[in-house]
């Protein structure tokens, strides 16, 4: 297709004003460019959805691009989130524009667009080599985005840590791709099916899985994630958590579609890893003090839920149970969409609060709802959605996975049922813990009275920041209220990808969701009616206001309120074997009659944090020991040479070399 060439050159024209215009031109040209990329890539994606065409193929400089249902789905999710992120960035970066050099802002926007483009390329390339190039571009672009506030040492360290971990993942992918291309003589992913037909399935899949789950943030390969998200600006954390980590999920599903044997064992493996990941993610989220870090841990939890869906789907394939497979994969894919929506919404609204209050510490907030009611409303929508509560979208995808698990429970063997029950219990616990966590965040940050911050001058954020949040909320509600509109196309994708044929039992799902729909509408209608009735009745009655009841005391201090820490404390006591909470304080000595001022702080340390720099530390200590050889005396160095020659002689004498 000749058009593709010209279309690809156009963005370069847009690029110039990003680097040379003033602040306004810079933003609008990047917005235009994002829009342009989104539209160009969405056209074939929509085409696949609407016309039920199977694939779209074209080529860029002799590299073939293929868009099938799965790619199309991820392309649409990516485009939407990147667009809303771009819209949000205008208001969010406002204070930075005065402080930062124009070049830094330009680089930021440039890498944002590069990230968008590289993610799309990851989704369309089927050639292993091209895929790796796009994968690498994605890592570099997101590295630059995290580095936005690189003048802070911690951010710099986090970004470098991120880059290193991405490359560890990259090595695994490279190995996997080299192995299969070496065997089949073809770099294309499509030859994977051939490879899996004649070779061991689990080994190569494990390589791919490790490579992709570093990106996706599956425990224990997640350690970059809770550091990188708070370090990056909010629109970047929103898009990174919303879509970039989903590229790992895309990769896992893509590879799974080629697997031929051992599906049951692979599914079991994924399900267990996923459940552990989801549970540990939310457990560690509860004890966080930083809003954005907490949200980052929730990304790990949600990746866990998505992977439970994937594991269930794979188990379904292994059990020859098409309904379970369909439900598992559809639930996973719908949760990918849902998570990209509510997580970006949460990051954006948390970012708005950070912009106005200049702090992210949960325990210093309070009463944000009075200053920023709209942002609070959006955060509440996101919180209800992420807890998987009806009538919003999170419930729909979790429901799909639940029904899949229950269906698998019925038709299976003994160990099968146990596995499904394991999935059910972990999903239930994840849901309950998420409610615990988000009642804490919402209650402490947005309700009550301000604890430490001064909020006299705080105002609601500008409409340009609220608009993208509104856009996302509309989709969240839409999926919650009209689920079949979204489930139907997703089942088509899954059916096409895994060659699952429909059967009549799937009709029961349609029935389920139409009934869920009715209950949702009844819930909303009765709530509104009753609320109106209540307001009407209260208007006639005497309504007065006074202080909160405090056991007879009228001037309770705002500091006496429950804090996030005290809310989490009851749970962290139970979960103490899993959590690592470090306390920092200097105990008062006995001879100190008048103790000086003390600070006491606790913070949670990631249980798997030791994976972060431990390898580097190990090498460093080894090298330090070796450095003793470096004495600086010439005689010693001659001695080393002499010993070396002797060893060579000895080896030659023994015929070893």
């Amino acid at each position: 297709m000749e058009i593709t060439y010209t279309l690809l050159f156009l963005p370069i024209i847009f690029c110039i004003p990003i680097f040379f215009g003033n602040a306004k031109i810079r933003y609008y040209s990047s917005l235009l460019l994002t829009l342009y990329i989104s539209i160009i890539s969405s056209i074939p994606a929509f085409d696949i959805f609407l016309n039920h065409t199977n694939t779209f193929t074209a080529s860029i400089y002799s590299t073939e691009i293929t868009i099938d249902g799965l790619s199309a789905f991820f392309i649409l999710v990516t485009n939407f989130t990147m667009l809303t992120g771009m819209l949000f960035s205008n208001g969010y970066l406002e204070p930075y524009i005065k402080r930062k050099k124009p070049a830094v802002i330009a680089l930021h926007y440039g890498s944002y667009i590069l990230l968008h483009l590289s993610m799309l390329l990851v989704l369309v390339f089927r050639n292993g080599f091209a895929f790796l190039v796009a994968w690498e571009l994605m890592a570099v672009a997101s590295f630059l985005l995290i580095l936005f506030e690189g003048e802070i040492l911690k951010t710099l360290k986090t970004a470098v840590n991120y880059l290193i971990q991405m490359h560890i993942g990259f090595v695994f992918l490279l190995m996997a791709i080299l192995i299969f291309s070496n065997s089949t003589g073809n770099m294309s992913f499509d030859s994977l099916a051939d490879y899996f037909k004649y070779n061991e399935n689990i080994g190569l899949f494990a390589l791919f899985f490790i490579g992709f789950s570093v990106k996706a943030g599956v425990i224990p390969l997640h350690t970059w994630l809770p550091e990188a998200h708070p370090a990056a600006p909010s629109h970047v954390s929103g898009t990174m958590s919303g879509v970039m980590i989903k590229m790992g999920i895309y990769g896992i599903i893509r590879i799974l579609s080629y697997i031929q044997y051992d599906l049951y064992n692979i599914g079991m493996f994924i399900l267990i890893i996923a459940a552990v990941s989801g549970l540990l993610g939310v457990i560690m989220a509860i004890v966080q003090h930083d809003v954005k870090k907490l949200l980052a841990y929730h990304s790990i939890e949600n990746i866990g839920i998505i992977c439970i869906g994937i594991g269930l789907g794979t188990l379904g394939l292994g059990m020859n149970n098409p309904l379970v497979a369909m439900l598992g994969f559809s639930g996973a894919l719908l949760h990918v969409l849902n998570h990209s929506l509510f997580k970006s919404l949460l990051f954006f609204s948390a970012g708005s609060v950070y912009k106005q209050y200049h702090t992210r510490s949960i325990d210093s907030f309070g009463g944000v709802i009075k200053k920023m009611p709209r942002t609070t409303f959006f955060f509440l929508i996101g919180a209800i959605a992420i807890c998987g509560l009806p009538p919003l979208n999170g419930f729909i995808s979790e429901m799909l996975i639940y029904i899949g698990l229950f269906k698998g429970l019925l038709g299976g063997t003994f160990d099968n049922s146990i596995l499904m029950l394991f999935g059910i219990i972990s999903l239930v616990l994840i849901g309950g813990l998420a409610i615990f966590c988000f009642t804490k965040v919402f209650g402490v940050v947005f309700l009550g009275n301000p604890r430490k911050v001064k909020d006299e001058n705080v105002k609601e954020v500008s409409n340009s920041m609220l608009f993208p949040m509104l856009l996302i909320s509309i989709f969240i509600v839409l999926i919650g209220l009209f689920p079949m509109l979204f489930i139907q196309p997703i089942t088509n994708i899954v059916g096409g990808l895994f060659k699952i044929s429909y059967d009549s039992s799937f009709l029961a799902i349609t029935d389920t969701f139409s009934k869920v729909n009715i209950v949702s509408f009844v819930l909303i209608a009765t709530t509104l009616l009753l609320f109106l009735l209540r307001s009407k009745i209260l208007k006639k009655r005497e309504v007065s206001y006074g202080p909160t009841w405090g056991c007879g005391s009228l001037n309770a201090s705002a500091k006496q309120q429950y804090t996030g820490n005290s809310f989490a404390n009851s749970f962290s006591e139970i979960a103490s074997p899993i959590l690592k909470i470090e306390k920092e304080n200097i105990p008062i000595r006995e001879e100190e009659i008048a103790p000086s001022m003390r600070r006491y702080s606790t913070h949670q340390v990631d249980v798997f944090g030791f994976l972060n720099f431990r390898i580097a530390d190990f090498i460093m200590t080894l090298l330090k020991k070796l450095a003793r050889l470096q004495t600086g005396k010439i005689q010693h160095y001659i001695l080393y040479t002499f010993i070396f020659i002797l060893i060579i002689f000895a080896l030659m004498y023994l015929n070893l070399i």
Partner: protein
Amino acid sequence: MISFLLILLTALFFPGIISRTKSIASGRKGPSIFQPWKNIFVLLKKGSKFSDTTSIVFQITPVIYLTTIVCAMLLLPFEANRTITGSISIIGFDGDFILFAYLLALGRFFFIIAALDTGSSFEGMGANREALYSMLLEPAFFIIISSFALVSGNISMQSIFSCIEFANTYYYIIGIIIIYLFVQIAMIENSRLPVDDPKTHLELTMIHEVMLLDSCGFDLALIQIGTYLKFAIFGTIIANIIIPVNTPILLQFAIFFATQILFAAVIGFLESFRARKKMVKNPQFILSLSSIALVVFVLCLLLLNQMLK
């Protein structure tokens, strides 16, 4: 439809029976069994006083709390006798118990944040306990439902309850354990002994009551109605488990009301002679229910395998 009306009817006398039993057990004559509802009518006629700290969340919560419970009632069947079309739940489908549990969770979500909305440390404490205990309790409910699903081969509540038959002697044992578990779950869900004590006068030892400290008048009435309905919902589930399949419809009604009255009386008696557990021991107690439920699940699996052979 019948189930919906039955729950409403049960909710009318349920709280009254509990308080009457308690007063008889403590040697008093006690109020009429409709006294709780008379109180509610008094509350409904009152004005309101709100805390300055509260926001719209506090105002909308009583409404959402009640409507989620009413919506959950829609999903609940009355022991389905297929010959009478009205006896099944109003809305039933595959996986309806998931929606049932999550609707109650939605109500709880708002209930918790409304308590935090007042900025009171007492209510924060209550909110925290409510969030923790309900989270720990959730797995027990789902494991029991899973074992039901396993035994009946169905995943909608009405087909589960219309298929479960404790014909086999082994199933009687399981049935007794399950009923014990459901009574305990109902007690915890409705903030009763041994986890929470509605009689206590010290804020530090309350859970449910302390979250209502700043609610009054119309709002308080809505929440109380919700609580009564919730009790009746759990009573109905227990009755559904007990009623054997294919009994004549009148006998079903008789068993239903006998179960509900007995359930209320048992709660009254237990509360009269039992003390609340130590707060720190509560998580252990609640988690132990999940492990008993797990035993039930494994027993069901074993029995099924045995029957297949």
